């Protein structure tokens, strides 16, 4: 049976984060935690393959203990197994240190639960927005790498091949590769299902497998957390934009406003530049 691993991250819903206009700092209070939604599309695709061909779906995440909630959500949707990798020593990790820990986790998942055929990640996270962790894991585990996948066309468990559509800026690339493969998921990949009642019941009682640094005897401490992260945030600021505070054009009738506006534009140097005059 196929073994599919889905990497997820619990993130603050950054769409809800506001900036304090006085102090120019982030207001994090009251911001809900969610499963990064690109990751849910990765999970959905794994579940569809499971429905069609039969597969065992393992979900993994690195995060603080409350990330258990996100793993339970994945279980309620139909994942078979969930692993939480958590340790204070992992905190402050950038994409390089994160991909190191997740690669180590996937190696251990393979050892304990069977070899991995496919890995799904979201194309990027809402909070980090980098899209670098997926390629990082693929690189460390020597997996084939298919990023920005908008459609899985065909999975052939016999030939151990998969054919997908990658969505790029200038078009769609149809590409095929061999297992083991890591795929990063776009929103277009599928529509995420709702959790069925039996799934919700199972999730309520579910306890994920929890691993800490102690469970990885050969992990190199210099490669994890803040210490293992080459990138450093040196400063943050709220960007300012040139303000012009131009003139207001007012009128009662829309036609009158439109005429005034065009009169001004036609009389300006813009009209020359655009070849109107």
């Amino acid at each position: 049976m196929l073994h599919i691993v889905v990497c997820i991250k619990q993130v603050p819903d950054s769409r809800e984060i506001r900036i304090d206009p006085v102090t120019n700092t982030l207001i994090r209070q009251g911001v809900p935690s969610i499963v990064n939604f690109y990751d849910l599309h990765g999970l959905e695709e794994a579940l569809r393959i499971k429905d069609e061909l039969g597969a065992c779906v393992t979900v993994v995440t690195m995060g603080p203990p409350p990330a258990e909630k996100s793993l339970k959500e994945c279980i309620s949707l139909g994942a078979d197994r969930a692993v939480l990798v958590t340790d204070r020593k992992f905190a402050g990790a950038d994409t390089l240190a994160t991909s190191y820990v997740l690669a180590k986790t996937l190696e251990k998942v393979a050892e304990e639960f069977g070899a991995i055929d496919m890995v799904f990640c979201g194309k990027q996270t809402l909070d980090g927005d980098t899209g670098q962790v997926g390629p990082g894991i693929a690189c460390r585990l020597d997996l084939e790498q298919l990023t920005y996948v908008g459609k899985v066309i065909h999975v052939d468990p016999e030939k151990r091949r998969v054919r997908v559509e990658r969505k790029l800026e200038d078009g769609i690339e149809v590409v095929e590769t061999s297992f083991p493969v890591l795929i990063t998921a776009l929103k277009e990949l599928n529509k995420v299902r709702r959790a069925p009642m039996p799934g919700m019941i199972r999730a309520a009682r579910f306890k994920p497998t929890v691993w800490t640094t102690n469970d990885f005897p050969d992990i190199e401490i210099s490669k994890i957390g803040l210490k293992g992260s080459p990138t450093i945030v040196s400063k943050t600021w709220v960007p300012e934009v040139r303000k012009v505070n131009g003139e207001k054009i007012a009128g009662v009738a829309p036609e009158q406003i439109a005429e005034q506006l065009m009169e001004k534009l036609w009389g300006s140097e813009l009209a020359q530049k655009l070849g109107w005059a």
Partner: protein
Amino acid sequence: MSTEQNNEQMPDWSQYRGVLVFVEQRSGTAKKVSWQLLGAGKKLADKLEVPLMAFVIGDQVDHLADEAIYYGADRVFLCQGPELQDYRTRPYSRITLKLIEEHKPEICLFGATGTGRDLAGAIATHLPTGLTADTTELDVEPHPSRLLLASRPAFSEKMMATILCKQYRPQMATARAGVFQALPRDPERKGEIVLIANPTEGEQIATEVVNFIEQTGTVNLEEAEIIVSGGRGLGGIEPFRLLKELADELGGQVGASRACVDAGWIAHEHQVGQTGYTVRPKLYFAIGISGAVQHTVGMAGSDVIIAINKDENAPIFQFAHYGIVGDLFQIVPAITAEVKKRKAAKEDPTMAFKV
């Protein structure tokens, strides 16, 4: 105290010199972001007093090595072969790694495109080194620190953050398309082209590109002289028709704020702002756009900005040369009609009396 200072000291990176830019191409045509990156890279290289280098991988792409020189590169590495026609992670990353290991650039830049992010993500892990994604500002500290100051939007575009990589070389970044400006193309410019062998030649590669379906569409915001953009105030897909009519009448293109793209009202290729395009048209309409900073940073460089919004306190009015408070559903068609009238008058001077 002195030990602490020693710990803070940066390793000796004197072997690493120069700025290297990835020239992304498909079927022999370079992505514009490649030339924009050479423009950005040139400033960094000049400040560091080092050469600007570029690398081109593909099949029959000699001409792109010349083009890279025209756009500012002093030295171009060229790796060609029929099996390199399409981008595939393994061969491309092997070539790039070999290049970086042999020539030791201190800075490597890639476009923040699907391909650029795919390649840069693999390479940074291999090396290993730090990689900053989606930068929109690039600068360097001069010698001796020579640090790349890679800045990017963070927290859903609400803030900017400057990222440093002190303990590893090269310093890597991907950079957004349409943000940096290319140097003017100079076909008289001279540079050196270095051919490099494909280390993966003859190898079996598991990944196979079966087909590519081009979907470029007609949107090209970066080059549009006039952009008519809509925001959340439009309330749905349908009102974009009004904007399209105005844009068509003016010979312009339709843009949008992130909210509209996130809501699925319009495709991402129309998006103006931090996660979309930075545009500098001669005329920009911001219609039903409140004027959040993540939008305004992408359009404030326009020559003339017209804002239409029903909320007179909308921040967008601070950035507009002309502000109209009112109902966009009435005002936009009125402007379209007015433009039609004036165009007709221009083509047929007798009409002018009737205007």
